[in-house]
């Protein structure tokens, strides 16, 4: 038997329904109305698979906890992923596809918060914390350089001294 490669086996739709109906019939949701015309170029083959994985890993599986639809084995996630694949194959862009899922599931569906408005907090705060910390360290280094006393004249704290004493004894024994 000839091995079958992944790219040829795109249409892994969830086994929700095994119906006698002709699947190619134009049934289902009329997504074109809400999505409009595709703004990008239709993808196929390896590129299609790659983009599907990329986008799917950024989209939250609504019924699982924190997993992306790329990782989740649930039926809903698999159905969503196959929709992503269809949209990409039809030439829709990343933004269009995200907007479509956001219409029904809300911002929740984005696994990475959109960097706009209040969400900027989660993107900027860590960087701000890092810069603040750096500033504190620089300040500390500067001020400690100023206070530098020559070696030998430094007066170590008493408890540290006793510790050193003990280390000396230990080493000497």
């Amino acid at each position: 038997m000839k091995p079958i490669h992944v790219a040829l086996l795109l249409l892994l739709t969830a086994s929700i329904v095994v119906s006698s109906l002709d699947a190619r019939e134009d049934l289902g949701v009329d997504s074109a109305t809400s999505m409009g015309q595709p703004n990008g170029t239709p993808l196929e083959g390896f590129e299609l698979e790659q983009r599907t994985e990329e986008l799917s890993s950024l989209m939250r599986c609504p019924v699982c906890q924190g997993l992306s639809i790329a990782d989740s084995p649930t039926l809903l996630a698999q159905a969503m992923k196959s929709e992503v694949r269809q949209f990409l194959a039809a030439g829709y862009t990343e933004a269009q596809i995200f907007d479509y899922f956001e219409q029904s599931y809300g911002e929740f569906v984005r696994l990475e918060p959109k960097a706009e408005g209040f969400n900027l907090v989660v993107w900027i705060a860590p960087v701000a914390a890092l810069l603040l910390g750096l500033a504190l360290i620089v300040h500390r280094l500067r001020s400690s350089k100023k206070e530098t006393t020559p070696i030998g004249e430094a007066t170590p704290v008493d408890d540290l001294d006793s510790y050193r004493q003990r280390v000396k004894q230990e080493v000497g024994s």
Partner: protein
Amino acid sequence: MSLSQIGLGLVLMALLTTAIGIPVGFVAGATRSAEGLRWARRLAYLFGISMLLANVTMEIALLTHDFSVSYVASVGSLATPIHITMVSLWSSLEGSILFWGLILGGFTAAVAYLQRQGHEDYLGYTLGTMFVVGLFFSFLIAGPANPFRPTPLPIPTDGPGPNPLLQNHLLMIIHPPMLYLGYVGMTVPFAMAIAALLRGQLGPTWLRPMRNWLLLPTSFLTMGIMLGGWWSYEVLGWGGYWAWDPVENASFLPWLVAIAALHSAIVQQRRGTLKAWTTILIMMTFLLSILGTFLTRSGVVNSVHSFTQSPIGPLFLGFLAFCLVVVVALLALRIDTLTSEPSEDAVVAREGAFLLNNLLLVTFTFTVLIGTLFPIIAEAVRGVKVSVGEPYFNRMAVPICLGLLLLMGIGPALPWGRASRAQIRRALLVPIPAAIGGLALAFLLGGRHPSVLLTGALAGYALWVTLDQASKPARARLKKGESLPTAVDRSFRKAPRRTGAYLVHFGVIITFVAIAISSSYQVNLEASLTPGQSAEVGPYLLTFDGIQLIEKPHLTSQQATITVAKAGKSKGVLQPSLNYYDTQREPIGTPAVKTTLTHDLYLTVMNVGEDGRLGLRAIVTPAVVWIWIGVVIMVAGTILCLLPSRPVRTTKSVRAVESAA
């Protein structure tokens, strides 16, 4: 007397013991009375014993299927195998809190016993603080989360059994206790930090025990986090080991801060500086443990692991708020007593690296914390639910981890104290060839991602420095004419902590590299196969042989048999399955994994069609096993650090090398 009554009686005893222990401990701490301290220690033993017996009582109830005890009625089942029944003590909320009580009791008694000498200045306050935490947990167990409540009549003859996910894999038996040992263990350094603040000093009789009591739970956390990742990999079936799930993050937060605290404690020991900072970090470790527990138990975040919403959430939040206020108040009143530091000479070189290490670790902590809490914050502010998931955390974590890897290289290479620019330059330039080697190796092995190439270079550098530093004392001894085994043995016995620390670094480098490789070079395949059909993934040819139905109590399993071949040679059979539990609609897949030293082949069943078609997902991930190996090395290193150093005959020149290193 029924087991319910005995259990509750024992918990009430623990409650009473801790309530008495608090004033006894703090008075003994304030008056430095030896008699008071003896009483505080006795109460600590009593607390430990009450908790132990309470847990034993629950185990008896579980094993004898005494469904008159409410907890047994909610998690027990006659059909559950005996080892699962035993561990169902921590499979559900009430039982897990009882188990926490046991660990806390154990830690309190252990501190009372092990620190009976040499730590007297602080022990009263330390035990007093631990009793406060003990009182809170005893109260939870006695009241709101009482697992010993009598079951309302009629008493059932059988129960539902524990959560199916727990029954799925043996790792789940050891993963939670490890995490609990880590979380609860953080109470000890916290109590010691409170004691130091109350006493207004941090001497060597504080620092050394504190560091060991911080190392111990940190190594438990390390192990717990790794086992959690491993469990997630082996059981959950999505092919990954870390999803930045809120509860995973909750265990990661205290771990990060504990690592930061361990490093700043080194500076404190070496230089007598950073005392207040170390104290703050230690207290943050505990507070983050409590926050993590709160997140896990309260159901406010969406997570795989969280227990259902329960009334103890607000209590935990109240306790967290109480601890935070006490900590801030104590710091405000006493921090100035800890800042009398010597500013001997310029804080350069190595100290600078330590400061940066702390900065990166704390930034990392802050990032994970804000990412975890942001959905709650956004909902409070905007009223909109947002998700902060893996892509966000990965984007933020990668540069921070690269920074840490860089510091792991340059930090240990730098000299302590004052050093000339030339010295520093030389110390930093020597390992450069190793960095180039690492980069070349990464490239030759097919690495093209910038982050992977950078990891290769930084890892090469860090590896060189780590090995160089670790072997320095032994090399000095060799030069003095000692034989190789003696030199190694002596330098190790002289400073096991030093060797341990570099071993930990070694493990971290391995883990970092393995994570970089495994997350960048996965090969993924989704295929729909009829029996007899084959599919190719990476170097493997997978042939689907058929599906078997396996009936077990409480579950039905569809097991696929897949023959694995590589380059025409059979590599055995893998049998991933889909399990349908009676209580759940959505099946839970059990992956089948073939692990080799270079890569893992990971198979999961996505679905099985009516006509017997198999929806198969196959993932080939390189280097996964090295993540676990790296963590095991880290834990081994930590254990070395816990060993006491023993005096060894040392010549002067060797000592010079050792103290400079």
